[in-house]
């Protein structure tokens, strides 16, 4: 179970207090009706789903209730940063530590 730092409560809490909110920084378009179907589908459904560092939303639902963002490495599950909603993605560009290649044993 992940241990997640809430930037509002300033404490680390177990994942059970949090609800995942999917990829971060996908702002709802200002005027949806002006978008083409493709653009709207992009907003609704297309996700980067990266293997490596990902900006994602969490909500401290059983804590302060706030949404915030985090950078997490989706291979190691390690958090690199947490930041409040509305703040820009921090410039930490940590390359994901190479996953041990279990398949080949090398």
């Amino acid at each position, binding site marked *: 179970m*992940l241990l997640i730092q809430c930037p509002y409560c300033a404490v680390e809490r177990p994942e059970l207090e949090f609800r995942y*909110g999917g990829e971060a920084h996908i702002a709802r378009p200002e005027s949806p*009706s002006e978008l083409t179907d493709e653009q709207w589908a992009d907003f*609704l459904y297309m996700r980067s789903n990266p293997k490596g560092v990902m900006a994602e939303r969490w909500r401290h639902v059983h804590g302060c209730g706030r949404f915030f963002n985090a950078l997490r490495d989706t291979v190691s*599950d390690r958090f690199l940063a947490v930041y409040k909603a509305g703040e820009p993605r921090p410039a930490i560009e940590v390359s994901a530590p190479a996953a041990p290649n279990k398949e080949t044993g090398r």
Partner: protein
Amino acid sequence: MTQIRRTRSGGRIDRSQPVRFTFDGRELTGFAGDTLASALLANDEHLVGRSFKYHRPRGILTAGSEEPNALVGVTRSPGSGTPNLRATQVELHEGLSARSQNRFPSLGFDIGAVNDLLSPLFVAGFYYKTFMWPKSFWNRVYEPFIRAAAGLGVAPTAPDRDRYANRYAHCDVLIAGAGPAGIAAALSAAEVGARVILADEQAEMGGALLHETGATVERQPADRWLEAALAELAANPRVTLLLRTTAFGYFNHNYIALGERVTDHLAVPDPDLPRERLWQVRARQVVIAAGSIERPLVFPENDRPGVMLAEAGRIYANRYGVLPGRSIAVATACDTAYRAALDIHAAGGSIAVIADLRERPDEALVAEARAAGIRVETSCVVTGVLGRKRVRSVLLGRLRSGSVTAAGTVNADCLLMSGGWTPNVSLHSQSRGKLVWDAERGAYLPGAAVQAERSAGSCAGVDGLAAVLADGAHAGAEAAREATGTAHAPRQIVAEGGEAGIGWVLGALPHDRDAARVRAFVDYQNDVTAKDVKLAVREGMHSIEHIKRYTTTGMATDQGRLSNMNALSIASTALNRPVPEVGLTTFRQPYTPVSFGTLATTSRGDLFDPVRKTPIHGWAAGQGAAFEDVSLWKRAWYFPRGGEDMHRAVERECRTVRESVGLFDASTLGKIEVVGPDAAEFLNRIYTNPWLKLGPGRLRYGLMLNEAGFIMDDGVVGRLAEDRFHVTTTTGGAPRVLAHMEDYLQTEWPDLKVWLTSTTEQWAVIAVQGPKAREAIAPLVDDIDLATEALPHMSMREGHVMGGIPCRLFRMSFTGEAGYELNVPPSRAREVWEAVWANVEKLGGCAYGTETMHVLRAEKGYIIVGQETDGTVTPDDVGMSWAIGKKKRDFVGMRSLARPDLVAEGRKQLVGLLTRDGTALLEEGAQITREAVPALKTPALGHVTSSYVSPAAGRPIALAMIADGRARMGETLHVPMPEGAITVEVVPPVFVDPEGARLNV
């Protein structure tokens, strides 16, 4: 004769306390402090189980949790046995009843052993190649046969009455394993004031110290020091010592799961004690001090009862006071087996020979053995054993430049073996730590840590008691420093004895036997032989993962703890690739099997999930209501009277509501108070409806879509004031809706000044519906004018009832009748309910449940989200375009409604259905077709979403979603059922009072 193999003295057992137990129904005796294994051995019982596939007789191989052979079932009461327990871990208690497994009719004579004769056929992967013809035989003959033969013990059949507990814990330093390394770590860490948890899976702490009889620590005998060290730790309030507690899982972010076995070792446990307890520990730092595991030698017939690991033999002799045999041969590639031989010899055992694979073992050791009168052979390999259910003699071979010549037979009923030691890297690996191949030691060692953990002692490849203690102390101090920020020198502990064990061998040993006829076992429990591993490679299974899955090596209940390294080495040879290139299979939790009860802890019955009850629940239960589960809530479903079934009760309730008045508990509806200057604007964006112009004191039905344009929830919303709304949601949808609103509010429109508060449980809701509804409540209302002009349909007032009980009074209807909803404080709700009830009764009314509510609303064509809709339905589909604010620029889901498929022809639309014969009740979920007997795979036009006998319509009615439904009014369609199709007519989905006249009485 009892306990003939018991030594005269020594060991940690309590000779003053004999303990009676049964094995396969036979009564035997051991001593307090014995394990089942040591007690059986004391009684010279070696044959304890049968193997998985070939049903070969098997004995006791180890003295620990890695035991693959001696698995037994232990029964406390009929039907509640625990299968597959390791005899080496089962602590003896008075009356213990254990049974051998996987044999029929008896352990000594097992019919399944024919499989052993067929073993030339039953090689790795054989079942993939056969049992395919005739086809029908697979399910009827072959598979049942395979299944019956496989499996080990027998699953319990009676519900488990035992309790299981849970505990969350935090610590600075968690130490897994309380051998010398773990204890030294604990002492050092505790010295700094760190919070320490020290857990060991055994019944006693001490690890190797429990049988290191010759060693001294701090110039005392090892066991004396151990006692003092444990006393010191026990006296420290910041240290938690957990016995019989296995660290079984190492999860993300230093989350470690421990399983504590609390009562299985007790003859008569205190009923208040749980059987097992799950510890979920978040540790700042972890020290893994899990020791190492001795490795078997892979030689022909190495699985015979009587063949045992050398250190296990030593443990039985030193710790349990049991000699593993009358005449004991030792085969080894490692120094530690000499210590075993010498200790057993000292305990009165007879050592027939030490056969050492190595050409030049440590001279001092050889000399010591010979001085004790023990025959030592070097360059000598064991090539097999004779005896079927017990070793009778041991075959030796002489090793010369790789080839083997026979070197005679030694009479022995026990063979101790050692192929060296495998560091226990399981937890490190679970924590995602890498492993590093150490060619010199022939072992994988823990590499760099990924989480906050370190390995210490034998599991880190550190050897020799003094070095292990020093390593443990260092690890403890380091861990404590990192956890607490306080540095402290590690505890200095001097020790002598417990020397390092040098020497090892991996893989199958060479022999001079007929290769085609003999079998050397790699994975004992799953009967995987060296030949199987080679066959897998021959068939193209070149990945170690394929080899594992094709042969099942490492997949038994010991998870390859003893076998993986040998299998790997054999594969490496067959593949002609170095070991580290072949790689290891993945270590997974649990470290040892953990019972489902431990994982489920207290979760059962009403504690499985919260049972939410409304303040009216007790009253309803008192009236004999039936309840249904809706999300976590219990809702009154119907109120049967005098033996009514549901249909009769519902019919009566429906009729009563339409004729006079009904009382309904709507407390479970979700409620959200939306407050702030931008509240109306917020709701405008969240709901399809317009809100800006709704006046205070007015109600409006709101429809909520998800961003994909599909109906997500609905409910009535009241405006309490300019900046304050009382929102209601469906019972099940309440948490979802609040989360959805918070999401948009916080992340899309943070500029809006509006806040949400759940008030679901601030208000109990008493719905009073029917032509006499006003009469029923009027006498109770203090300060609200109920006249239609003052309080028209879809309006609300705040006031009081019954002399000062606050009430938000809504005039609204979900039945088509005039109705009110009294929102009152839950603490007073029962009072109010009963007062209303008294009036309702006087008026000839009734209480009704959710089923009647469903019928009444269906008669009016009101949808239920989740019943008429299923996540693929738009407002227009259910004829609710009217709920969409036409002038709105945007709301959640609006853009999606314009997508091609959502505006396409042929969408399913809400309609009513009447059966042609006027009597048949359609089944909800039934399909609707054009033809009475459609050709197979003809797509249905739609399905019945709701169907009830309608007392008001005097016939069954139904709602349905049908393609182009609104254009089909009057059309005749069919509902094909197994017994034949039912003819239906498509009608508008309103069956009662289409004009809504009844609302305004």
